[in-house]
């Protein structure tokens, strides 16, 4: 019962949303693109979408500068 978050193996928590996972991982930066397996999760769905067991989660944060 585990998931992979940015190549780090962490416990899978039943009925945990993307928003809750970001909080648990202490990803405090507000600006992220989240992908679960191959699907990009829109920000508006962060508090609705549950993290499935065995999934691979990528959290990408955007940094200012251009």
């Amino acid at each position, binding site marked *: 019962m585990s998931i992979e978050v940015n190549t780090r193996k962490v416990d899978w928590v039943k009925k945990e949303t993307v928003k809750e996972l970001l909080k648990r991982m202490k990803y405090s930066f507000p*600006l*992220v*693109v989240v*992908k679960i397996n*191959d*699907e*990009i999760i*829109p*920000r508006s769905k962060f508090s609705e979408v549950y993290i499935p067991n065995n999934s691979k989660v*990528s959290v*990408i*944060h*955007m*940094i*200012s*500068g*251009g």
Partner: protein
Amino acid sequence: MNKEKTNKIKKKLKKSSVGIAGLGGLGSNAAVALARAGIGRLVLVDFDKIEDSNITRQYYFLDQIGKLKTNALQDNIKKINPSVVIDAYCEKLIKGSMETRFKDVDVVIEALDSAETKVAFIEEILTKLPDKPIVAASGVSGYGHSDRISTKNLGKLFLCYDENAKSCDIDVLVAPRVGLMANWEANLALEIILGEDR
């Protein structure tokens, strides 16, 4: 040079278009690289004027300070490759309609400044134009550490990425690294248009 390959690429690029959101360090340099490569059409969007502090890394000249970036970049590109068709829009991207100018381009390049705007733009393109490839960049500030940059591919999003770079609010923006990222973005756009170079 491989003549056959050169001609094949030339033909394909001539028929292709790239849209660039933001004409600062990333956008101006990416646009020039694509113009030199022979892109057929560029859609350029920016609302800003050139300031003297921009000259350290953006593709503008001292005598262009005060001009609109859309106009100045058009002038500069015309001096390099006059055959590029340029659709320039001097306007601010407004949340809710950010995708408007990019509906008919082959690839979109995100070349914006603040992290908030980057995320908003990427999300709007990904959700409203789901078949459109978008190239974005994150982590341009600082110098050195070229090897930390990598491409992250998330579906239609191709991200030129250095997660260890600092925000430009607390770091510096200098030509070599900004140019590296800008050309990385342009190079990704070419790869998307032409397919993998084998």
